[in-house]
């Protein structure tokens, strides 16, 4: 960009800062500038209900048909899994693991499934597996078809990409009520939600896989005289197969994650319900045990599906696998009808662990209380109610006198001017930071939010993004959800800050030390494989219900992207530039801050993007342990069976996610290789 244009934008942002200061000052006198004026709130959810409910009820016959279609295979798989004696089922899974991933994976499969049996969770785990086994083929089939069609008709791709983003960011609970109206109460609604959530990765991977088939392969098939169908099925699909299998892997994991969350509507007697009921009963041992089962299943499914995506020699041939599976069937027939499951022993152990855990929690409480207070009073409260709210005798031990106000204004103005002298951009950022720290995010005057977001989206993304952002803000304001939305943004912002502080530091260390990187990698892998639900268990155990617990769960889930992207960016800094830095005599510290981190900028930004997406998607799950933001609104709507309110809250979360994604993506590059 040319210098005059940069200066013009500095003037624009400088003007916005001045305007925002004015708004904050005026908000003291005119409270309607603070929160969105209640006079403007419309009863949107009722209107939406009036439209949605009859529409979905009218579509009921279709829903009943689809329900029947989905429930027949589900019932069959359920009863098959329930009938198969566990030694035979384990044998079959171990053989598949051996074929897919070799001896180590086979051993892991045996140990993991053995643990599930020993803890007494086998039947519940099989019920969860049945849901996954129905949802994954449906999602893979739909995703592949959509991806292939989009490849065939490239004009549809932009619209499809937006649709996929919406499907992945719209919280499932937000559209669960309409689904329940459509399909009736039962597993189909849950399955539909799971399919909606897990289709996008399959579509994306299909599209990428087909696009990246080398032109020479297409041309050579054409020159061999392939008809269109032969070209597609015999040349393109087999060439794209590794990428398609990556899609199957991601779809499976998404599906498992959603199947477990959807247990909240109850009635499946599955492992997700087990975690939920154990958490509600505050039985730590049981919820940890059930959580461990989920993690084991997730890791196992992930490694097996990933193993199929790998090309290369296998320890055994396909026909031996087939023979082994027949053997497993024979074992099943021989053992069928006998009650082989261990009794209550495993559950008794878990109860005993309960006691120990309670002791541990009581013993460690002082330490965690310190942590909790430090973050609550040091970070969360100032972000939520701002300096102006925190500076009271109850919170920080001193009152907000005019002298202190004046001092705050003077100090922050001085800092902003000092920074702005060298670089206007930094001065403006410092000014906004000081302003936000004064009001707190939710307390920032609403016209200011419209202005700042409007200018930022207009500049980065053009009219489309601008319209989306303004629409989302207007929807939040008019539906009376302005404060919950700002609370969501605030909770996410705090989580992202903490994630970047911790994850960034870990990423820097991992980039410098191979040993630390090797140590961190399996932990990151496992954290990314775990269904979101599981993160609630330790957070809840240590910190009880509340916003801080939700924050911890979000951080646990969203801390991996910064680790990965920072490490990836630093490790892939151009070797010649790093050498040049060393040659000029940079110290390690200078190297990091002045050479490598600037070079890793786009990777770090992409990591930021991924962190925000992860935090937003965890928001709704974390709301289960008590928050005051949009995620909670989604639950309230769910428990009231208020389809309209759920849809609106979900739509606002989607808007926030899409806008922040596009804002950050237009800076970093869109087509960037994701580090493994």
């Amino acid at each position: 960009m040319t210098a005059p244009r940069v200066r013009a934008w500095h003037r624009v942002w400088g003007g916005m800062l001045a305007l925002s200061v004015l708004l904050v000052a005026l908000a003291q006198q005119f409270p309607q500038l603070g929160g969105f004026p209640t006079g403007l709130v419309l009863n949107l959810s009722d209107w939406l209900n009036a439209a949605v409910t009859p529409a979905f009820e009218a579509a009921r016959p279709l829903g009943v048909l689809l329900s029947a279609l989905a429930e027949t295979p589900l019932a069959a798989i359920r009863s098959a899994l329930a009938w198969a004696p566990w030694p035979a089922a384990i044998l079959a899974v171990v053989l598949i693991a051996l074929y897919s991933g070799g001896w180590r994976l086979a051993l892991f499969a045996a140990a993991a499934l053995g643990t599930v049996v020993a803890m007494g969770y086998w039947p519940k785990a099989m019920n969860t597996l049945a849901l996954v086994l129905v949802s994954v083929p449906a999602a893979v089939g739909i995703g592949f078809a959509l991806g292939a069609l989009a490849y065939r008709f490239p004009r549809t791709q932009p619209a499809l990409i937006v649709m996929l983003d919406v499907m992945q960011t719209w919280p499932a609970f937000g559209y669960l009520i309409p689904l329940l109206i459509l399909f009736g109460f039962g597993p189909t609604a849950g399955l539909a939600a799971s399919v909606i959530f897990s289709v996008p990765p399959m579509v994306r991977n299909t599209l990428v896989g087909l696009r990246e088939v080398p032109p020479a392969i297409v041309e050579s098939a054409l020159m061999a005289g392939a008809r269109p169908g032969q070209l597609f099925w015999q040349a393109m699909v087999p060439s794209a197969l590794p990428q398609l299998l990556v899609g199957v892997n991601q779809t499976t994991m998404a599906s498992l994650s959603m199947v477990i969350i959807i247990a909240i509507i109850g009635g499946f007697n599955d492992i997700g319900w087990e975690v939920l009921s154990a958490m509600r009963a505050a039985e730590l041992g049981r919820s940890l045990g059930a959580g461990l089962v989920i993690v084991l299943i997730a890791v196992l499914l992930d490694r097996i599906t990933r193993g199929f995506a790998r090309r290369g020699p296998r320890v055994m041939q396909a026909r031996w696998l087939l023979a082994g599976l027949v053997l497993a069937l024979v074992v099943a027939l021989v053992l069928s009808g006998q009650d082989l499951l261990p009794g209550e022993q495993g559950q008794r152990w878990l109860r005993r662990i309960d006691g120990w855990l309670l002791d541990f929690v009581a013993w460690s409480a002082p330490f965690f209380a310190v942590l909790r207070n430090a973050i609550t009073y040091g970070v969360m409260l100032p972000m939520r109610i701002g300096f102006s709210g925190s500076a009271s005798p109850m919170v920080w031990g001193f009152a907000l006198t005019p002298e202190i106000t004046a001092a705050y204004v003077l100090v922050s103005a001085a800092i902003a001017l000092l920074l702005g002298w060298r670089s206007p951009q930094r001065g403006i950022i410092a000014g906004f930071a000081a302003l936000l720290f004064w009001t707190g995010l939710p307390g920032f005057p609403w016209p200011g939010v419209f202005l700042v977001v409007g200018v930022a989206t207009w500049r980065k993304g053009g009219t489309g993004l601008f319209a989306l952002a303004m629409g989302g803000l207007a929807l939040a304001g008019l539906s009376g959800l302005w404060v919950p939305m700002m609370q969501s943004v605030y909770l996410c912002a705090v989580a992202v800050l903490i994630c970047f502080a911790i994850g960034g530091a870990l990423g820097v260390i991992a980039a410098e030390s191979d040993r630390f990187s090797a140590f961190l990698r399996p932990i990151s892998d496992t954290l990314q494989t775990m269904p979101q639900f599981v993160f609630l268990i330790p957070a809840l155990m240590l910190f009880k219900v509340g916003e801080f617990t939700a924050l911890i769960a979000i951080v646990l889930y969203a801390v991996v992207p910064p680790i990965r992207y920072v490490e990836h960016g630093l490790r892939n800094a151009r070797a010649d530039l790093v050498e040049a830095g060393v040659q000029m005599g940079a110290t390690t510290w200078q190297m990091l801050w002045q050479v490598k981190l600037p070079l890793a900028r786009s990777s770090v930004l992409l990591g930021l993007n991924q962190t925000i997406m992860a935090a937003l998607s965890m928001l709704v799950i974390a709301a289960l342990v008590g928050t005051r933001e949009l995620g909670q609104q989604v639950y309230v709507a769910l428990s009231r069976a208020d389809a309209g309110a759920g849809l609106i809250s979900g739509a606002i979360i989607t808007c926030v996610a899409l806008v922040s994604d596009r804002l950050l993506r237009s800076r970093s590059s869109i087509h960037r290789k994701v580090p493994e």
Partner: protein
Amino acid sequence: MAQASSRIMLSCKHLWKVFGPRPAYYFDTAGYRIDPEALAARLRGEGHIPAVVDASFDVKQGEIFVIMGLSGSGKSTLVRCLSRLLDIEYGTMEFDGQDLARISGRDLIEIRRRKMGMVFQSFGLMPHLTALENVAFPLKLQGVARSEREARAREMLELVELGSRLDALPSQLSGGQQQRVGIARSLAPDPDLWFLDEPFSALDPLIHRQMQDEFLRLQNQLKKTIVFITHDIMEACRLADRIALMRGGRIIQLGTPAEILLSPVDDYVADFTAEVALSRAIRVRDLARPAQGEPPEGPPVPAAAPIEVVLPALAAGQRRFRVEGDGGLELEAGAVLEVLQRDARHGFRADGASA
């Protein structure tokens, strides 16, 4: 080589291929024929890329027809037009009594299945199929039974001396081996017309020569009609019966290697060919003439050999050489010396430039 009959296999007239927003607009009248150069200039000025400009040539049965040029000269586009991987804007391509430019659908698939073979620079092997399955792939598409197609594929792999690697996946083969599989695959349906698009460019320079020898051996055995694309002038001179030299989408000179080397039409071609050591690229038959008077003594020299084979005898004082074959041809020392002098001048010029 050199046994090309006079029967024309593929006859191309006034081929145009243009990339851009609306290429068809320029070809709805025959007006372009007045001045192709002017139309090309107009296309460039209006946001189009004329990749092939008014190309006309005949390929004779059994000949190796090399299309050569630098990258961006349109040679790869031209071969894709001939194989109809790209559709041309204008022109005719007569092959086997049909205009390739007009046929489509089923007929095109049928021609590709039985009459055309193509080898690609980046091999284009299916990563999930073994060498044997890759070679059998075109036959599988035709619906040939497994045992039959695998027998044929085995035969083809024997032909390219890969009979021992039937079950290897492409990723387990070296570049040279992969291209042999590509060659075997393109030959499996026994095509009449064989396209090779820079087949050796992606390979290590050290094995170029080995692959070229292999290719010449195959051609001696099979006598296909070949369109060979390359950017390497030495490769073109070694393999070609005739060369079409392309620049900016136009064929700027068409002739035997000796014609192009010895009488370049313009400075561009002269510069292009300056690096070629003529004593290696010019063959005995290019300079041979009917023997005058008494046939020369001494052992005969092969007609297809480069003229450098006579240098030792020339240095020893021999002035006339009998050329192998019954045409009664001889090679005269003066003609050889003239070529050598040109070589020396180029060498001097190169030195002068570097000094």
